[in-house]
């Protein structure tokens, strides 16, 4: 085990997969010499050359479409869209092309591409650089959506995403890149579709993912000291959704809360809450609670920015409301 940063974990995954498979290549804006805005791809162009570490102009729609085409002819492209906000420029390529190709072609073709992108508030970057838009991808059949919270999960899941034969939307969080955590020295892969119980507990289940996992763990620690034992389920992968782990936990605790940074209205939390109601109604001791981002664009000013996203206190309060 070594402690490394989230961004280093991502780099390790890319590095190992590029080493392993010459069909893996990466594309994005200033990812080569500059190593990307968040320094995830640093050093890779030196190792793998400009044929496999490709700087692009600011033409998101087309270079994402290129990933679809390259995947169709046998490559495993990993495309970086610097902010998930900019992914709005590539929705046609993702929703209408990548997600549908296998289906449309009657299974003849697969699109083994990964779209790495990054979301979330917290750096004063304002409304067009702070969104959490995973729900838009979650709704589209044919896509897998991965949102790791720790360096360990980031590395293992990115490797799985690259090896997966379906298009994977891999969403990082801007506040995670510099976080540290232990990862095994030996190579490992974490299968897509498996949630991880980041903290076991008895009294209630918190279902969460990405950066919010850290806040939920903080909240759980705070509650623990008051004698309340909360289980924190980190989904890691939103689609496929690990219903089994979620349902087992909720059946044990009888109380469930979903926490995410994305706006509450139409967020993934509603879907999970509805699923729990459908599949575990009799096991629930009360309504599933959602603690989520406010239904507002994210402002620039830091004080009101912070007011948009769930805080540790909000989560603690949500748990107390449930009990």
């Amino acid at each position, binding site marked *: 085990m070594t402690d490394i940063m989230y961004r280093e974990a991502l780099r390790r995954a890319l590095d190992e997969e590029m080493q392993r498979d*010459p*069909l893996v*290549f990466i*594309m994005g804006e200033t990812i080569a010499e500059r190593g990307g805005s968040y320094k995830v791809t640093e050093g890779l162009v030196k190792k793998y050359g400009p*044929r*496999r570490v*490709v700087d*692009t*102009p600011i*033409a998101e*729609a*087309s*270079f*994402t*479409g*290129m*990933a*679809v*085409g*390259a*995947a*169709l*002819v*046998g*490559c495993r*492209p990993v495309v970086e869209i610097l902010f998930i906000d900019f992914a709005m420029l590539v929705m*046609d*390529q993702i929703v*209408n*092309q990548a997600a549908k*190709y296998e*289906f*449309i*072609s*009657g*299974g*003849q*073709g697969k699109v083994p591409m990964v779209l790495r992108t990054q979301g979330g508030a917290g750096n004063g970057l304002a409304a067009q650089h702070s969104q959490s838009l995973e729900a838009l991808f979650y709704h589209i*059949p044919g896509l897998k959506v991965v949102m790791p919270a720790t360096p360990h999960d980031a590395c293992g899941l990115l490797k799985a995403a690259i090896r997966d034969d379906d298009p994977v939307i891999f969403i990082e969080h801007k506040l995670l890149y510099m976080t540290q955590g232990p990862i095994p020295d030996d190579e490992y892969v974490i299968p897509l579709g498996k949630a991880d119980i980041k903290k076991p507990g008895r009294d209630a289940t918190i279902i969460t993912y990405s950066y919010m996992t850290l806040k939920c763990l903080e909240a759980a620690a705070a509650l623990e000291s008051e004698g309340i034992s909360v289980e924190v389920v980190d989904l890691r992968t939103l689609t*496929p959704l690990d219903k089994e782990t979620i349902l087992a936990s909720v059946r044990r605790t009888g109380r469930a809360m979903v926490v995410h940074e994305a706006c509450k209205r139409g967020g993934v939390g509603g879907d999970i809450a509805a699923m729990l109601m459908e599949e575990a109604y009799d096991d629930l001791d009360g309504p599933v609670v959602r603690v989520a981002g406010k239904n507002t664009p994210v402002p620039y000013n830091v004080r009101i920015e912070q007011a948009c996203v769930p805080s540790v206190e909000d989560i603690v309060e949500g748990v107390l409301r449930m009990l």
Partner: protein
Amino acid sequence: MAHPPAADRSSRPTEASPGIPEPILLGMYRNIYATRRFELRCIELYRQGMIRGYLHPYLGEEAVAAGACAALRPQDYIASTHRGHGHCISKGADLRLMMAEITGKATGYCKGRGGSMHISSKQLNHLGANGIVGGGIPIATGAGMGIKVQQTDQVVIAFFSDGASNNGVFAESLNLAGIYQLPVIYLLENNHYAVSTPIECATGCCDLAGRGPAYGVPGICVDGNDAREVYRETLQAVARARRGEGPTLIEASTYRHGGHHVNDPGLYMNPETLAAWKDRDPLVLMRRALGDEAKIRAIEEQVEAELEAAVTFAAESPEPSVAEFLAGIQD
């Protein structure tokens, strides 16, 4: 709007075919004829309710696909459009599997899930028709990138029409292919209309080939009704692409022989202009160029037989199973 046929502007000899081997000429004629007949048959089947959804005939434009695909090897790729039957046929499709797909049968190329607007064939390296205008352009560009990464000498043709050339992905993709010197031929089938919108109303500059140089990509114009000319120019572009010399934009001037889709009478098209284009019918031009009536008849008979077999195959094929379909859906 007046869209004079290419002949009036072209200075090239069109009635002779120096340098094109006869098998290629015959192959192009076969594809033109097969496409013509296939489309007419599809229109009948549409009227009979055997084909649903949108059907965009390639009538009048057959020489573009026939000429361009003749310059390819089987392992080369194409990406096609909503008006894609000609591309599919000229890339070597089995008419039975095509017709089964277009009639939504389980035996079709895409198991009846794609239909006319989404037909593709992995076996033919046909990346697919596309329901999104311009949708295939970045995909073809990416196929070019994939080829470069894999360091083979394959090439890709992206077919699309004038309407798509006003979409941002066209400019972006040209630019990208220019930077990376990708082995992609952008084959702009300028049929002068996007649905009912004449190209003059869709841009202030109708020199569409000229957009290539604006992004560092050579752009040339050809007579899209003359398969031989399309073939010759595509062959050169393909050769350059195989040598690693990058992409080419080819604007092939052509014209629809009818409305935008099967239910569009195309009343907005000037009848005289249409008649002038029909005078230069790609089928007739090619037949004239070949001369050899016996060989022509043999090809036509062969196609008719294939086509009837295709219709029968499609008619007799089963629909996709609902149960199987539902079983394949992940919750």
